[in-house]
């Protein structure tokens, strides 16, 4: 599904990703782990086609994603529909003036009729149990509520891959537990999940495979989550603990 080969990326002089190789198959739940500034977020941006690699290639469903292809509006739209991105800062993801409009934004663009949109939006609100927020203004919601609305507005596009950047950040323990369970359900429903996190307690709940980043922006390990967590030596080595 996702295939990354010998990928390099740098911001000006500073390297962010150094020779990354990674294959993710449909239905997997992968966690990207690593210390702050190791390149996780950059990789997520890349997977979502927001930035393009300096070197190397990135393929999605067997098609190489290049800057040129993304300039083709039709291609880029289809690509963005298939892969959903939940931003680290939910604030930046919400710009409509009601939760309903926010969630309906995607389905409306996809050309659904208003009645279809209504069903889709209500399903999503139910799915995240935020029906009561329907007519609220996203800007004034609490951190946890904003995160849920952000997830709902991505889910309404029904993407095949869901990418989440530090989704546990700033959530209370109860909402964290809820999110773990929710992601589990999504995975069981066949969605591919890619999550970046440095939350060691929750990582085994949301992934069956973990990719560990070195501070030097390379991949240090790619193991089943349980086994990676056992390797305390390695986690210390990459300065995660």
């Amino acid at each position, binding site marked *: 599904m996702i295939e990354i080969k010998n990928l390099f990326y740098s911001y000006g002089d500073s390297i962010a990703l150094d020779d990354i190789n990674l294959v993710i198959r449909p239905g997997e739940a992968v966690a990207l782990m690593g210390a702050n500034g190791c390149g996780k977020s950059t990789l997520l941006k890349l997977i979502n086609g927001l930035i393009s690699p300096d070197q190397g290639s990135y393929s999605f469903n067997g098609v190489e994603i290049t800057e040129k292809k993304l300039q083709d*509006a039709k291609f880029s739209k289809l690509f963005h529909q298939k892969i959903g991105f939940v931003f680290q800062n939910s604030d930046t993801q919400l710009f409509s003036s009601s939760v309903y409009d926010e969630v309906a934004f995607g389905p409306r663009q996809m050309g659904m009729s208003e009645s279809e949109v209504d069903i889709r939006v209500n399903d999503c609100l139910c799915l995240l149990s935020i029906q009561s927020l329907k007519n609220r203004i996203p800007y004034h919601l609490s951190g946890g509520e904003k995160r849920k609305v952000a997830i709902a507005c991505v889910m309404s596009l029904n993407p095949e891959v869901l990418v989440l950047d530090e989704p546990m950040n700033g959530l209370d323990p109860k909402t964290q537990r809820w999110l773990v369970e929710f992601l589990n359900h999504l995975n069981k429903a066949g969605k591919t999940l890619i999550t970046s996190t440095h939350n060691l307690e929750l990582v085994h709940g949301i992934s069956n495979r973990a990719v560990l980043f070195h501070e030097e922006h390379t991949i240090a390990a790619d193991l089943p989550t349980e086994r990676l967590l056992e390797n305390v030596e390695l986690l210390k080595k990459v300065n995660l603990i």
Partner: protein
Amino acid sequence: MDNLKDHKIEMPEWIYSNENYIPLTDKDTFINKSILSVFHVISRIRMQDSLDNSRFKINVSLNIFFTFLLIVLLSITKSFIFVVIVIVYLLSILSFTEADRLVKILKFSISVTLFTAVIMLPAFFMGNSYSSIMITTKVFATTTSMGLLSYSSKWNSITEALKLFHVPDIFILILDITIKYIFMLGDYSMNMLYALKLRSVGKNSNKYTSMAGIAGTTFLQSKEMVTDMYHAMECRGFTGEYHICNKSKFKWVDYIFIAINVGAILLFFHFERA
């Protein structure tokens, strides 16, 4: 929150199947354009932060003073040769600049110059050869000297050096805060634009509403940041007074710089008198 009892998560039907979707075309280059211009500004601010205060570093206050003076002289002069001499001088300074910055300065000044040339073209054919040639070359000289100033000095040292012109400290503080918040709000709004782009998977019939949402949220966010900022400043004892100590000494390059600029002034009078 509403789900006090542990909510059972139920998946709707559609989630089990992949969306069979053929995108509609839409004219939405404005998102990319906005991202690009914000990105440009952010990277420009980031770039000047990585400047090192290494060799050939001219005292910033001096640099500003003489850059302004040069711009005034350029604006007044009617001597084409003076403008050419100044350009030669600027280009020779430019040649000492590292390639990376050099390209950016030239790219900027040449693009502005070309723009001016296009604007002046009709005048040129109408018989105004003097002003069209003169203004275009003057614009090149002015933008190059401004480019040299802004690309070779850290911006906080430029704002600090404004003290020389009796700009009050509090105003310099405002300028510094503006630069910082252009960066922070820029980063924030760029992420919003990214989010808009990722979710623009079809036809958006309310483009203005979406962009207004982004601009409006950025404004509200800026208001919130303001409150946080002055609370933090108050906690650190800020009462509206702010003092900058400017501790810069002249080095040998500075004297050379002064000499060159005095030379430029003398040349200016020479050509105006001749």
